[in-house]
C-alpha cells in the first residue's frame, strides 16, 4: 500500500512512518518544514526515494505540505500523483501544544482536517483515511467513555480538546457521507514502553519538570482523578496495523489508550520513589487559590501548570475493547512501570535535572 502520513516529522508521525515501512508499505511523509526524520530513539529515518514516482514497497519519500493551506499547500504535480496513487492517508498533523491562542488550534486542527478532506474528495478513486484524534475529546465527561461515544454534551478542558472534537466531528460527517475512514484516539502519549525514551519532551513532560523540581509545590486537583498514559510505540504500531486490517474497523473509532489509568495518587507515589523529584501537594480545586502562591511559584503556575489542571480533576475511564483486540497479544507494562520508566529516562538524560554520565548504563539496567 502507498500511505501518506501528515505530521510525519512529529514524534508520533515519524514512528508511524517507521512502523509502516517495517510493514513494507510505501510511505510519503508530508512535512510542514523541511527536516530530517528523526525517530523516537534518536536515530535517523532516511528517505529512500527522491521522487514520488520511485515510491515502492518499504520505501519512503517526502513532500512539503502545510495543512492550513488549501490542498495542504502541495505542489500541483505532487497533488496529481498523490490523488492517483495513494491508498491511505494517516492524518497525524495537529497542534498538540497547550497554552496557544484558540485561533491556532482552529486553523491547524479544524481547518487542517477540512483541507485534507477537500483534497481527498477531489480524488476520482477512493482514498482511505485514518484520522488521529485524541481520547480527550471526552473532555470533562465523568465515568466510562466508550469507543463509540462522542458527543455526550461534555465540556472541554482546553481549546486543544475542543479543536480535536470539532475536527473529529468533521471526519464523522464525512464518514456519514461515504468516506472510508477509521478514527484512532490516543490518550496522553509518553515515552517508549520498555525504556521510557522520548524524542520530544512535550505535553505532560514540562509540567513534570516544573513540579518535580519543586518550583511549583501546590496544584489544584483530586487524588482520585485519572490520567491515561500510553507509550508511543504502542500507539504507532497500532495505527500501522489498522492499515492492514482497515476493513475490519471501517467507519469505527478505536481508543489507543493504556486501559489502566493512573490516579493522581499513583503518579505522586511513583514520583516519591525518586529522591530528586518533589511530590506536589494536590489541593481541592474549590479551595485552591493560585493568587496566593509565592510570586515565582505563581508565575510558573500561570504559565504552565494551569494548562494541565483539567487533567488532574477528571475521572474519565476510556474503554478500549476494539484497540485491545487489534493489538492481540501485545501487552503494555503496568502503567506505574511506564510512568517510572519515563521519569527515569528524563532524569538520566538530564531533562529533570543535570545530565548524567551513567545514563546509558542505567537505561540498560532498567531495561
Amino acid at each position: 500500500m502507498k500511505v501518506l502520513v501528515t505530521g510525519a516529522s512529529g514524534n508520533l508521525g515519524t514512528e508511524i512512518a517507521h512502523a509502516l515501512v517495517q510493514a513494507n508499505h510505501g510511505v510519503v511523509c508530508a512535512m510542514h518544514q523541511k527536516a530530517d526524520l528523526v525517530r523516537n530513539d534518536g536515530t535517523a529515518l532516511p528517505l529512500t526515494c527522491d521522487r514520488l514516482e520511485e515510491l515502492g514497497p518499504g520505501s519512503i519519500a517526502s513532500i512539503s505540505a502545510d495543512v492550513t493551506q488549501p490542498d495542504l499547500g502541495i505542489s500541483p504535480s505532487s497533488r496529481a500523483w498523490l490523488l492517483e496513487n495513494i491508498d491511505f492517508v494517516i492524518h497525524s498533523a495537529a497542534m498538540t501544544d497547550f497554552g496557544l491562542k484558540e485561533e491556532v488550534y482552529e486553523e491547524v486542527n479544524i481547518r487542517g482536517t477540512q483541507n485534507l478532506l477537500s483534497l481527498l474528495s477531489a480524488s476520482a478513486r477512493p482514498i482511505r483515511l485514518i484520522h488521529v484524534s485524541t481520547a480527550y475529546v471526552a473532555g470533562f465527561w465523568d465515568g466510562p467513555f466508550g469507543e463509540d461515544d462522542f458527543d455526550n454534551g461534555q465540556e472541554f478542558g482546553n481549546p486543544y480538546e475542543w479543536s480535536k472534537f470539532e475536527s473529529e466531528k468533521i471526519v464523522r460527517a464525512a464518514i456519514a457521507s461515504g468516506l472510508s475512514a477509521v478514527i484512532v484516539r490516543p490518550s496522553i502519549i509518553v515515552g517508549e514502553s520498555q525504556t521510557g525514551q522520548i524524542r520530544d519532551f512535550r505535553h505532560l513532560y514540562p509540567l513534570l519538570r516544573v513540579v518535580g523540581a519543586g518550583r511549583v509545590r501546590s496544584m489544584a486537583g483530586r487524588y482520585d482523578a485519572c490520567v491515561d498514559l500510553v507509550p508511543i510505540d504502542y500507539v504507532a504500531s497500532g495505527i500501522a496495523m489498522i492499515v492492514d486490517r482497515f476493513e475490519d474497523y471501517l467507519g469505527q473509532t478505536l481508543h489507543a489508550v493504556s486501559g489502566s489509568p493512573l490516579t493522581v495518587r499513583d503518579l505522586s507515589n511513583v514520583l516519591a520513589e525518586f529522591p530528586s523529584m518533589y511530590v506536589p501537594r494536590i489541593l481541592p480545586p474549590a479551595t485552591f487559590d493560585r493568587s496566593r502562591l509565592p510570586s515565582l511559584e505563581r508565575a510558573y503556575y500561570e504559565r504552565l501548570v494551569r494548562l494541565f489542571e483539567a487533567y488532574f480533576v477528571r475521572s474519565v475511564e476510556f474503554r478500549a475493547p476494539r484497540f485491545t483486540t487489534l493489538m492481540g497479544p501485545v501487552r503494555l507494562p503496568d502503567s506505574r512501570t511506564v510512568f517510572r520508566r519515563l521519569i527515569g529516562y528524563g532524569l538520566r538524560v538530564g531533562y529533570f535535572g543535570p545530565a548524567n554520565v551513567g545514563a546509558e548504563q542505567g537505561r540498560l539496567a532498567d531495561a
Partner: protein
Amino acid sequence: MSELNRDALPMLDDRRDVTGTDDVENLLTEALRRLRLPNAYGVLLEGSVAEGFGNRTSDIDFLIVTEGPQSKRLPTVMFIDGRRVEIRIRCATEIADHAAHILGAGAGGGARIAALSRDELDIFQRFSHALVLRDSPVVRLLLAAHDRELFKSIALRWHALRAIRASNRAWLMLHFGNSESSAAWMRNALVAAGKAGVAAAGELYITDKWLDLQYRRATFDKTLRERMWSLVGQRPTEDELTEHLGKCLLLMKDLGVEGSQTDLNEVQIVPRAGITTWQLGAQVCVLRDRTEIYVLGSTAARVWRSIVFWTPIAQVIKRGRVDEKDARECIERFHRLGLIEVAWADGDTWLRMGAAPMVLPAGPFVSFDGFRVAQLGSKDVALFAVPAARLCFSGAEFVWASMCLENAWEDFIGVYEQKHWKLVQTSLQRLVSWACLILFSAFGVSPAPDIQEVTARIDEIPAVSPDLAAEALRLRLLDCDCEADAIAGRKEVEAFLHKVKEIIGGRLFPSSFEHADDWRSSLEYGFEWGRLASFIDPTLSADGRSFPVEEVRDMLAVNQGETRAEAIGVATYAGNDFGRWRRGARDPSTERDNHRP
C-alpha cells in the same frame, strides 16, 4: 550396599589424614542401628573429618544416599559417646540434579557462577570429596558425575569473584571515609583471594575457616601465606589505608585475582525498593517500606535531593552543592541505612547494607528467651516503639548468632588441642565477631550489619562504651603464634564475651554443640522466634536478605510432623547448616562464612 574395602577406594588421596577411622566405623554402626534406614545405596563420611581437618571436637558427618523419594532438608543430630554425629539423607536423583546444576553454572560463565550460593558449592564439594564407607554402584556413578576438574575452575572463579566484590567494597568504604569498614572488607577480600589461590592448587574445601590448613597442605608458594596473614592482621590508620589497600591488591593479583574497581566514578547509586521521599514543609523525610521514617538534616536533605539513580557517586557528590566530605559522609550513611544501593559499573555487582541501629535508650530488648522490658509491672501491657517485624527478625538473628558463637567456641577447643595457632587465632576472632552480632540483635537491629564489619560498627550502639568498641576492633585482629598467645587471647576474648553478656543483660546461648539437652533447648528458642517471625512475614525476608529467618522457617517446617527423631531420642538439627538444601542466588561477598566443619 557393601562394607568398605578401603584398598579399593578411589577417593582416598594421600594428603588426607583421617584419624580414628575405627571410631568412625563404630559411630556409623551405632547411628545406623538407631536410624534403621531402608533402601540406602551407600554411606559416606563427609565434611571436615573426611577432609582431614577434623579434631576431637569435630562433628562426624555421615551422608546416607537413598533411593528417595526426596532428600531431607536438614540433618539428624545424635550424640554418641560424647561425639556429635550429623546424618544427612539425600536421595540419589537429588544428588545427581545438584551436580548437574553446579556444573551447568560453570558452563554458563561468571554471572551464573557468582549466583551460586556457598551452600550449593559446599554440598557439591562435600560429596565429591567424601570417603565411601558403604559402597554401591549407584554411589560410584554419582561420584563419577562429580567432575572435580570442572568444579575446580568453578570454585576458583567463585572465590575470585567474591574477593573482587569484597575489595570493591573496601575501596568504596575508603572513599566514604570509613577506614575500619574498609580494612575489614579488605581482610575479607584477602581471605577469599587466598581461597581462590589454594583452589588453583586443588584445595577445594569451600568454607573459609580451615584456610590455613589448606595453605599448608597445598603445593604453593608459602610466602603468599605469610603475606596474607600479615596483611590480614594489620590495622592501618586512615593515612595508611590507601597504601595498605594497594598492597592488598598486589597480593590478590599474586594469588591470581584481578579486576577490582577502585574509583568512585565506577560506582553508581541505584534505587532500593520500598524507599520514597516526602516533603513536610522544609523537611525532607525518607520512608522505608511504609513502616519507618527518616528525617534528614539540612545537609543530608540537600545531598539526598541531588541523588539521581544510575549516576556515579562522584557525580552526585558534585551535584549536591555541599562540602565534598560532608556529601560523602551523607551518601555513606544513606547506604548504611539501606536507603540506597550502590552498584559497580559492570552492572552485575550489587551491594546491600543493613539498617540503622534502632536503639532504645532503655537498653537491649531482645534476648533468646523473649523481650526485655524494663520495669514491666505485673499488670502492665507494654507497647514497643520498634516495628514488630524488626524486633522479631532481630530475635531470630539473635538465636542464629548465638549458635554460631557456640560453633566458634567448639572450634576453638578443637584447634587449641591440636596446637594449630593460626586456627586458634581465627576461631577467637570469630567469637568476637559473633558476639558483636549478638549485640546488634539484642538492640533490635535488623538486618544487622554484615559479619565482616560488625566489630567496626558496634560503636554505633550507645550502650557500648568507646573502650569496649576499641577492644572489639583489637580482638578482631588478635594475633596468635604460640601457646602463650592462645592462652592470653582466650582470656581476653572470654573477658570480652563477659562484658557483652553484661550489656545484653543475660546469659548467652546454651552449649548447643555439646549435649543433646542443650541442643534441644537451643532449638526450642529458635522455633519460637522463627514461628513469630514467620507469622509476621510468611516470606520471611528481612530487607531482601533471607537470612537467617528463612532457615528458622525450614527448621520449623521440618520439625512439624517430624516425630521419628523424637521417637529415637535425637533432636533434628538445623544448626549452622541451615539452608543447606536451599537454592538461590546471594551475593557471595555478603555471605556469612559460618559453616560447620
